[in-house]
């Protein structure tokens, strides 16, 4: 029960980082060797050496963050807000050392200028138990929209 509660709180915190544009806070949730991965479709087994919508280590996450924060990130200038809802949190595996694997579902609404887009899908989190709480070893994002043509692009993590 405690693990379920802790994991849910962790996932909600991560979603909140995105919706409040706390980019550094979001990156800090990853372990030093953590990876954020969004495969092109559900059949992919690994991010390594494959086409990927996102396949980012902390260095690349930092590039993305610095870009978004740069005053000349033209496409980031318009009004832009997101709202994430995370649910269906199921713990799949708990190791003796407290490391945990958890799946969940998300729905994200994005507003950009006058346009609304919806993205939905599932998260798979591989979490490492540390003294300061969980750290993300791997976050896999299987977006239901992934295989459709993208009307415009994704600028930040989902």
């Amino acid at each position, binding site marked *: 029960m405690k693990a379920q509660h802790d994991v849910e709180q962790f996932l909600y915190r991560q979603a909140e980082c995105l919706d409040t544009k706390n980019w550094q806070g979001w990156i800090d949730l990853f372990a030093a060797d953590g990876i954020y991965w969004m495969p092109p479709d559900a059949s992919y087994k690994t991010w390594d050496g494959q086409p*990927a919508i996102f396949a980012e280590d902390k*260095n690349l996450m930092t*590039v993305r963050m610095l870009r978004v924060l*740069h005053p000349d990130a033209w*496409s980031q200038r318009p009004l832009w807000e997101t709202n994430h809802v995370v649910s269906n949190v199921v713990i799949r595996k708990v190791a003796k050392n407290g490391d945990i694997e958890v799946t969940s579902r998300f729905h994200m609404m994005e507003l950009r200028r006058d346009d609304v887009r919806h993205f939905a899908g599932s998260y798979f989190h591989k979490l490492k138990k540390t003294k300061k709480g969980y750290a993300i070893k791997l976050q896999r994002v299987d977006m239901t929209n992934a295989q459709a043509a*993208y009307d415009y692009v994704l600028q930040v993590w989902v």
Partner: protein
Amino acid sequence: MASQREADLSKFVEPDRVRKEVYTDAAIFEREMERIHETVWIYCGHESQVPKAGDYCQVQIGRQPMIMVRGKDKKVNLLYNRCPHRDNMIVGDRKGNTGDQFRCSYHAWTFHHDGKLKNIPMMESGYAGTRLNKDSPELCVKKAARVESYRGFVFASLAASGPSLKDFLGESIVAFDDMCDRAPEGEVEVVPNCFRVIQHSNWKFFMENQIDALHPSVTHQSTGRAAHEVEKILAKKAKAGEALSYHMLSAFATVTIDKWDNFQTINYPHGHCILTGYMGLRPQDPDTLAYDKVMIKAYGKKRFEEIVGVNIHHVLVYPGLSVQSPLQQLRAVRPLGVDRTLTEIWHFRLKGAPEPIYRRSLAYYNLVNSPATLINADDLENFWKCHTGLSSDGGDWVSFARHHGHDIEKDGHVESAPNQGTSEAPMRNQMKAWAEFMR
């Protein structure tokens, strides 16, 4: 502006400027689909997308939904995606394998891979005495008028006559030679699947932007700076190899505007263009050296030097193909409407090359061309802003005057002058070709 359907469009294009309606007018769009996209050679796909008999994928040529399918005779066919009965699309999936035949989902008419009619239910009883019998040509799925393949890259023309593929491509054929020659086996294969991104603008913006050497340091400043910051941190940690993929991005900021003038564009008939000068140059890291070794073994030292010495950044094959051969990337432009355009972005693997070489260009593919791109986000924003700005009555012309009058004409092509790589010569050349096609 329907009256422009038959209007003389030649006055819309001047040597250094173009009327804005060329981008925004729906009637002009219809006419360019008819005269350009549904007439000239259009890139359909690569043969490795359909390796087995019955493998197919959908392709858009101009306004025409088409099917690219591999036959039992190994031939790649291009068919109109339309059942000759009631116009039902023959296939609804973007790709797949149709087995021995196509079978229409509406009334079970069946067709061979080359479009020939195989069977119609009740052929004897239902059609006796009608204008149709099983040998009627109108009962076959229509084929593209012409299909040709060059080094595995399949093109189709919906016009029965016109220049051959090779004549149409002219010098731009180097895009495919350069890509394939860089493979020790002389061939490439697709890395499935392509990324697909829609832009809210006319298709021509994409083609103009690809070889606009002035825009990167402005449009992509934020990504360039961000990558440069991280690159510096990594360099301190002495992980030079790891920093290479960031270098591709940081170059957008660290290569200053005047340096982009060192590039050169060579502009050819039919609107094609080659942008020379390659940011990566010849790295000397262990992965590159290992690749060089394999290449020398395959081709010999002399030929190897020729191959890797080809100095190309981008090749534009008008009207809808952008090829970055040294990085094995290809972008196919599919106009969806006057203000909507789809790009399909493919990555190719050099057959016989060591894995790290694939991974290097893959990193570029993911960073620059994925739907989470750090680069095209700002391009697409500009395209939308351009297209929307064109609806304004603030002016009637789009300017392509940069370095106009300085270009060098020789041997039937037009080169940007030395140190004038940012010349808008490619846009002038594209619009000149456009006016000729639209005549």
